[in-house]
């Protein structure tokens, strides 16, 4: 406490005290924080179960003070399905990167969405495989250089970047899809609101909720954190616009 002052913002209690291993400026950390703020504000720590992926956020369970399961690479949607079907009154989320959700896990992702599984996807899309050293991802931009696209992503060889939010919003039983980012405080606040919405809709059993975060990877992109924000604004957002793709009817909410 501070004399003569009112505390208005601090690290949520639903985060552990462990210092996060993510690179400086990485939105993984930001989303971990915003997600745990939502869990704290909704007072659902005891009712939340998360599934973490293989990728930089493989140790998410070290930072989020909720029950979590480690899934094999790409299988988080299937694991989350298992958990939510058994525990329908828990708030279940899968937390995945672009390799996990949009490469190896595409089948699991699409089928969970098609079935309308009532959990929340949190999809961290930073166009690169950070953990394994900076290889190309299904969401790497055209012309973007990575360690396996050293001359720039060539659509003629490997296709164009996948737009997952756009794809999953076509499923009938997917209730809410929004793409957000954390490059400005305003965007970060919106991202938190989107996560909150997703959990509220999950609570009302409206169907699958899917939040895609247009995220950064300063290390993989070989930029400073500030430069990575510029890349997002100039190169990423034009291809991956921040918007609500689908949301429940007013009467359902």
């Amino acid at each position, binding site marked *: 406490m501070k004399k*003569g002052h009112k505390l208005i913002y601090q690290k949520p209690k639903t985060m552990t005290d462990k210092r996060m291993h993510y690179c400086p400026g990485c939105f993984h950390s*930001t989303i971990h924080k915003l997600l745990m703020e939502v869990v704290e504000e909704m007072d659902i720590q005891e009712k939340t179960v998360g599934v973490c992926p293989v990728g930089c956020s493989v140790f998410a369970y070290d930072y989020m003070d909720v029950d979590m399961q480690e899934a094999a690479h790409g299988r988080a949607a299937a694991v989350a399905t298992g958990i939510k079907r058994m525990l329908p009154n828990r708030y279940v989320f899968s937390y995945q990167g672009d390799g996990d959700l949009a490469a190896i896990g595409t089948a699991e992702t699409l089928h969970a969405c098609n079935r309308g599984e009532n959990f929340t996807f949190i999809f961290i899309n930073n166009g690169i495989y950070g953990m394994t050293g900076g290889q190309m991802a299904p969401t790497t931009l055209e012309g973007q250089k990575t360690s396996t696209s050293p001359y720039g992503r060539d659509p003629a060889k490997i296709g164009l970047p996948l737009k997952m939010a756009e794809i999953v919003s076509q499923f009938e039983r997917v209730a809410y899809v929004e793409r957000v980012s954390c490059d400005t*405080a305003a965007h970060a606040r919106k991202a938190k609101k989107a996560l909150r919405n997703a959990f509220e809709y999950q609570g009302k059993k409206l169907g699958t909720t899917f939040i895609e975060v247009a995220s950064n990877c300063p290390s993989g992109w070989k930029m400073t*954190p*500030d430069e990575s924000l510029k890349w997002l604004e100039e190169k990423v957002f034009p291809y991956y616009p921040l918007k609500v793709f689908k949301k429940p009817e007013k009467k359902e909410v």
Partner: protein
Amino acid sequence: MPAKGTVEFDIERCKGCNLCVTSCPTDCLALNTSDTNSYGLHYAYLKEEDDCIACMNCAVICPDAAITVYRKQDPSKERRNHG
């Protein structure tokens, strides 16, 4: 301008990413270029104490939840509930 609030940094959690400095509307934050934390990183600090307006932008954007924000309580003025 007298400060409307103040911020505190968890120096060890801070990674010196500079996003708080960039997001501050009054430019009152900076990285301490003459000191580092135990990880060798230049942590952020409140450079211009009088300029903090307690907008919370820094704390919201801080990836590492390293920032705590306080609003000054002025008993003489009518308090608005910001919630």
